[in-house]
């Protein structure tokens, strides 16, 4: 179906269903229950799930297939956001030109950066991309371009946003004053109250979700194409590939540009959800987060990056909002002494300490599941299969472990 083999099509279908039903699935606890804290089904967070999903799907085309570890991918995200906000400032709040320009500008930047960085491989490639990204961050943070040309380009540490006196030449009087798709406002939503639950379906989330599904579909096609096969060959043995008559540089550059454009799309969508941006989006920790997301989920797998992005954004937004009072609430039924001890033990891992939790989770995954969360899923799957086989030994055939 759709040019995919049945296994990939099933996977794609599962992701489609998850994206459509996320506002319900991610809100399992009634709004007034003690666990409502863990609900992730609110628009701002769901948008982040799918937008960072796009970013990491694209990153995985480069890192997962070719093995080139870009350590400056957030730069393309940032560039995309700046391009989109400039479109809002100059034209109108319609997101179509904004997102298109984000993708194009990120693509152009990645051609230049990729062309230079891909002259080296391994750690040197990573350092070159990191250097480029930090240069771009520094330029954006101090708005060197603005100082050079006079006026503002990135607006330094204040960040770029839309002001009332911006030209917005395509704006007619009745147009919405928030990002919209031909009048369909990104931040408007429909709330469905049922029982103790309240599910929010937001336009912006669904638009990003559709674009993520399109990106995911394209990524599957690339993974299964001859082009994808060549990219995997680059990761496996460049020497043999060269003596097979293939020039690996243009393949790697194409992968780099594609993943840069994915990042630009993600950056444009971030701006479309909230029309302001700043240089901190390009900082190296943001690039590092992308690497961590893809390793956590499973490098080179189709679904891994989306899982990784989801887990990290969940922790960043949920674990970081848990404070001591909430934990006191959980353990209120215990004697005071024990309650205080438990709260003290948990304290470093919650709120601002969520990075510590993330670090421990990341270490556990890298050490015990080198293939990421996807490998965890596969092991679970195999465990269940083995049980089934043991239950009916007469028909069972033993297969060598892979």
């Amino acid at each position: 179906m759709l040019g995919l083999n049945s296994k990939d099509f099933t996977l794609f279908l599962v992701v489609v269903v998850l994206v459509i039903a996320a506002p319900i699935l991610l809100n399992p606890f009634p709004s007034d229950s003690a666990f409502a804290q863990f609900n992730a089904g609110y628009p701002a967070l769901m948008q982040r799930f799918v937008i960072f999903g796009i970013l990491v799907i694209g990153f995985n085309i480069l890192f997962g297939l070719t093995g080139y570890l870009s350590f400056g991918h957030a730069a393309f995200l940032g560039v995309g956001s700046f391009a989109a906000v400039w479109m809002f400032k100059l034209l109108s709040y319609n997101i179509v030109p904004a997102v298109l320009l984000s993708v194009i500008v990120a693509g152009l930047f990645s051609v230049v950066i990729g062309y230079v960085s891909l002259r080296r491989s391994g750690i040197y490639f990573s350092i070159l991309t990191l250097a480029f990204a930090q240069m771009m961050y520094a330029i954006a943070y101090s708005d060197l371009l603005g100082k050079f040309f006079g006026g503002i380009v990135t607006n330094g540490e204040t960040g770029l946003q839309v002001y009332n006196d911006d030209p917005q030449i395509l704006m007619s009087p009745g147009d919405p004053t928030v990002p919209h798709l031909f009048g369909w406002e990104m931040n408007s939503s429909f709330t469905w109250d049922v029982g103790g639950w309240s599910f929010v379906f937001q336009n912006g989330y669904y638009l990003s979700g559709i674009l993520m599904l399109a990106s995911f579909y394209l990524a599957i096609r690339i993974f299964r194409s001859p082009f994808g096969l060549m990219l995997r060959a680059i990761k496996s043995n460049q020497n043999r590939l060269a003596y097979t008559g293939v020039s690996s540089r243009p393949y790697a550059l194409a992968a780099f540009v594609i993943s840069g454009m994915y990042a630009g799309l993600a950056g444009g969508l971030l701006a479309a959800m909230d029309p302001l941006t700043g240089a901190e989006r390009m900082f190296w920790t943001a690039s590092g987060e992308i690497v961590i997301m893809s390793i956590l989920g499973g490098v080179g797998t189709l679904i891994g990056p989306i899982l990784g992005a989801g887990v990290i954004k969940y922790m960043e937004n949920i674990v970081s909002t848990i404070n001591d009072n909430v934990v006191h609430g959980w353990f209120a039924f215990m004697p005071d002494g024990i309650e205080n001890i438990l709260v003290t033990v948990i304290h470093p891992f919650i709120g601002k300490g969520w990075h510590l939790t993330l670090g421990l989770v990341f270490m556990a995954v890298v050490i015990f599941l080198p293939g990421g969360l996807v490998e965890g899923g596969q092991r679970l799957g195999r465990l269940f299969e083995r049980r089934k086989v043991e239950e009916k030994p007469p028909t069972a055939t033993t297969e060598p472990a892979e």
Partner: protein
Amino acid sequence: MGILEVKGVNKRFGGLQALGNVNLSIAENTVHAIIGPNGAGKSTLLNVLVGKLIPDSGSVMFDGQSVLGRKPHEINQLGISRVFQTPEIFTDLTVLENVMIPCFAKRDGAFRMHAIESVGHEVDIKTQAETMLADVNMLEKSNMHAGSLSRGDKRRLEMAMCLVQEPRLLLLDEPTAGMARADTNNTIDLLKEIKAKRDITMAIIEHDMHVVFSLAERITVLAQGTPLVEDTPDNIKGHPKVKEAYLGEAAH
């Protein structure tokens, strides 16, 4: 006029004359072995032949075109394939994918953006690869990871990857280095089989006399960077100069 013509090639590394006035002509459809003691310049010569090293002077012509200064993928496109000392294969991919890649390379050239079609739909390429695998008796291993093959099978796979492109010249760099006697004999049989089935020119750089005398139709003996003598295996065996420079030394 041979398919590969090396004329007056010199190469110095600092004070060391690695190759001195090397002239070599490899005739089409022959198995030509290049032998010589350690440090005779065999590897340097091979690196010159594949464009990896540019000689200080002289020319290397393949079918009327110079190979010097060309990149590895361009050398391949001229019709030269190379088998390495340790098999160079795509260890992370399946055996079938390993053979499909050279098929794609042969059809599509150095770069083609084929990002949307599915590999599974490339029936021609798949058939071509499977026919080749059947030819080297590896069809039943199609779906295995190339990295998990035995050493002999890795060598077999590498040969299949080279042969599927139907090269006009196959360069073999010590194809049996480090192999057990049984594996060596298998490799010799494989090469004989390949030679019997198709028109192909092979240039073998080899240490092992057993391999050389089982396969070669012409032998060039290198010593101290210069060709000492070139002749048929039978004549080489009894040649006094060769005995002195190489076989004599090997008898120690």
